[in-house]
């Protein structure tokens, strides 16, 4: 039976890891478990629960910096930022519906480095992660980065921890950059374009000076978001209509927000969790064509985001068809985002890396966690 050890502070985390190190006990690091189904199943007899390392210890809107425990619920952070007209600009997704779990934590969002629709403009979690405290697999508490928005002192270990799925460090405190939330937004929907025309329109919009911050394609309808002060949004929207022509429709602020929230959270594919779901990151200009090919070859459905750079592919059933999906990929990577435990055991969830990168990543990981205590097996290998 899996035993859960609940840490109350950094000292508890250090002591637990020291115990695990001495006895070679694997630890599953967990906040609220909202992303526990991402990656491979963790093979550990103990859960180190970090959810009580919660609470916002410092938030200074004018400094654009927020420091909190990694177990702080995302909802709590978003509520506070909203009060001050700010946000996390990487639009952290809420995968509760698509994965059948609840809401997540700040530490989880950073550890999985997932960015929302604004990714191609504003970056992912990695780009907003300024500093942390944590405990290594050597049972040593250490810190990296800083609590200011601009810092190049020492190696940028935040980048490494973002996207490490809890395999390097048990986080105990994190500092992130926050930014003003745009005053308003609207979305231009383009109807009646085939795949090539939709892709061309998205490239034209992204390459224009009109600062678009969302570019999605689903069910044959491309959507283009503009955000900012009202006069600017009105001006750019008109410029985009003139630039792109054709049959268009405009979503005002509220329906625009609803659209991008649904894209961010992949709400379209929340209905049937038995169906396998892939997440592909590819060069954006070829994304729509690749999505169309994947639909033709698998009978699945796609949601294209990031102007073509991100493809969500929902398959008709639980069979991942990894050979077809990865076979179609010329560049980039494909992650099996949702699948049954059996399917995830049979297929590499993360894109297999070249031997050189895999070896280097392994060496890096051992420098943080020499015995492989943290989330063993989660990233494969």
């Amino acid at each position: 039976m899996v035993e859960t050890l609940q840490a109350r502070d950094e000292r508890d985390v250090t002591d637990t890891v020291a115990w695990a190190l001495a006895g070679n006990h694997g630890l599953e690091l967990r906040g609220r478990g909202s992303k526990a189904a991402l990656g491979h199943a963790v093979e550990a007899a103990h859960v180190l629960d970090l959810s009580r390392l919660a609470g916002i210890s410092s938030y200074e809107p004018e400094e654009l910096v927020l420091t909190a425990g990694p177990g702080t619920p995302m909802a709590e952070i978003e509520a506070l930022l909203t009060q001050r007209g700010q946000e996390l600009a990487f639009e952290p997704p809420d995968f509760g519906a698509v994965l059948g779990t609840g809401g997540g934590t700040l530490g989880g969002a950073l550890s999985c480095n997932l960015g929302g629709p604004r990714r191609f403009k504003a970056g992912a979690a990695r780009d907003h992660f300024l500093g942390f405290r944590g405990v290594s697999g050597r049972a040593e508490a250490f810190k990296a980065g800083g609590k200011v928005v601009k810092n190049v002192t020492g190696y940028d270990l935040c980048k490494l921890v973002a996207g490490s799925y809890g395999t390097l460090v048990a986080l105990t405190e994190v500092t992130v950059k926050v930014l003003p939330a745009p005053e308003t937004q609207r979305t231009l929907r383009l109807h009646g374009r085939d795949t090539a025309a939709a892709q061309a329109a998205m490239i034209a919009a992204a390459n224009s000076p009109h600062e678009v911050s969302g570019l999605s394609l689903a069910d044959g309808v491309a959507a283009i978001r503009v955000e900012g002060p009202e006069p600017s949004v009105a001006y750019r929207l008109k410029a985009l209509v003139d630039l792109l022509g054709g049959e268009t429709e405009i979503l005002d602020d509220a329906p625009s927000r609803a659209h991008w929230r649904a894209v961010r959270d992949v709400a379209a594919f929340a209905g049937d969790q038995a169906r396998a779901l892939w997440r592909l990151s590819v060069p954006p200009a070829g994304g729509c064509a690749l999505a169309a090919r994947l639909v033709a070859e698998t009978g699945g459905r796609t949601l294209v985001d990031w102007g073509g750079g991100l493809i969500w592919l929902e398959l008709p059933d639980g069979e991942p068809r990894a050979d077809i999906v990865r076979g179609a990929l010329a560049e980039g990577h494909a992650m099996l985002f949702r699948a049954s435990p059996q399917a995830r055991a049979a297929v590499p969830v993360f894109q297999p890396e070249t031997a050189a990168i895999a070896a280097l990543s392994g060496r890096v990981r051992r420098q943080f966690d020499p015995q492989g205590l943290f989330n063993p097996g989660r990233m494969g290998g």
Partner: protein
Amino acid sequence: MQMPAPDQAAISALPALLAELESFLPADAIVAERRSLKAFETDGLSAYRQEPLCAVMPRTRAEVARILQACDRLGIKVVPRGAGTGLSGGALPLADGVLLVMSRFNRVLDIDLPNRCAVVQPGVTNLGITRAVESQGFYYAPDPSSQIACTIGGNVAENSGGVHCLKYGLTTNNILGVELVLMSGEVIRLGGRHMDAAGLDLMGVVCGSEGLLGVITEVTVRLLPKPETARAVLLGFPSSESAGDCVARVIAAGIIPGGMEMMDKPALNATEDFVQAGYPRDAEALLIVELDGPAAEVDHLIGAVSEIAEACGATYRRISTSEAERQLFWAGRKAAFPAAGRISPDYLCMDGTIPRKRLPEVLNRMQDLSRKHDLRVANVFHAGDGNLHPLILYDANQGDQLARAEAFGADILRLCVEVGGVLTGEHGVGIEKRDLMPAMFDEVDLNQQQRLKCAFDPTQRLNPGKVFPTLHRCAELGRLHVHRGALPFPDLPRF
């Protein structure tokens, strides 16, 4: 500042190294004569000079790999160098090391506008990337003030910033892929034209590693469409407090300007003497706020910023009405370093970042330090992100002035850390701030950082003596200390 004692065995191995290098490099790629090596003895931190053992200027990735393998085999250290414009001494040669000069990697390999990226060799200059794409309406966003000379390889090594990085990010936020060669000669390609890593984000940690992890041989950069317009406003204030207040209120109003720079009275007067940009000489603090983007937005925000400045007590306001006038506003700020060079034989440029609200206190204490060390200081400041550039004015030919300038600089950086900031916002640690690292990080923090290097360069031959004050062998860093066999906290909640 002391460098590690030169390794006599490495120096004795020079003839063997040269013989091997000559077997695969053309003669013009090897510099071994003392007289010629003089040209490479320093970088942008010219207070420190050291001739390298020899310098090599390869043209291909394969040559880089063979050079590194040969050095690794012969136990010789390697210091990579781009254009040598870095301000922290990261490319300072070692007496017992080869200087690997990457300036011949100067080609733009691919411009891919549909994917908004370009693939370039590391010796292409920062401005050279923008020059290659600007006719098509694009640019590369990070713009360090050395952008005419500094190379993208050096920018990646240092994670360089610039005046626009509050809005557009540092180098790390503007690259998609890198190719690097490890000290072992192994070639690693990270990232590409897509976003985010499939596994660990190794590119993220290579960027800003100051030449300690690998030698960059190719970079894929993000390109952005040029903003439709840009306008700047000059604002004069009667005190640094009121200028700082204005900056905070602009950000609190939800405005992230493309650039927001502050200069104190000594700095603005020095630049005004030099460039005649029309700065108000009697202001105690000058702000340059640049808004860029769609024309309607820029006009709207210029109005908002002007109102905030007035409420904060601005005594001077001038809004650029033409591109030429906007460029003139910047000409003074961009010439701040050479302007300091005109009023003082030498200067040291510091680079700490502080929480912005502590600015008035830091400036006041800096005046105290100026009296203590009996040296003048002029301040330019990336106000939006709290990145200070105090320019300490000294004369290296006068007695102990260099030593006093260094001590002054160290005091300023310790002050930055004390108020919650960091040692370097964009110039890197190099040798300049190496010995101050313990002011910000304890031994456990620094050891964990150094372990990362062991994964890339286990023999520690790549740029040793930079960034970290104490060198430890990887075997020593890797030793595990296991203390406890039982959970020592019976009250820990368990389920």
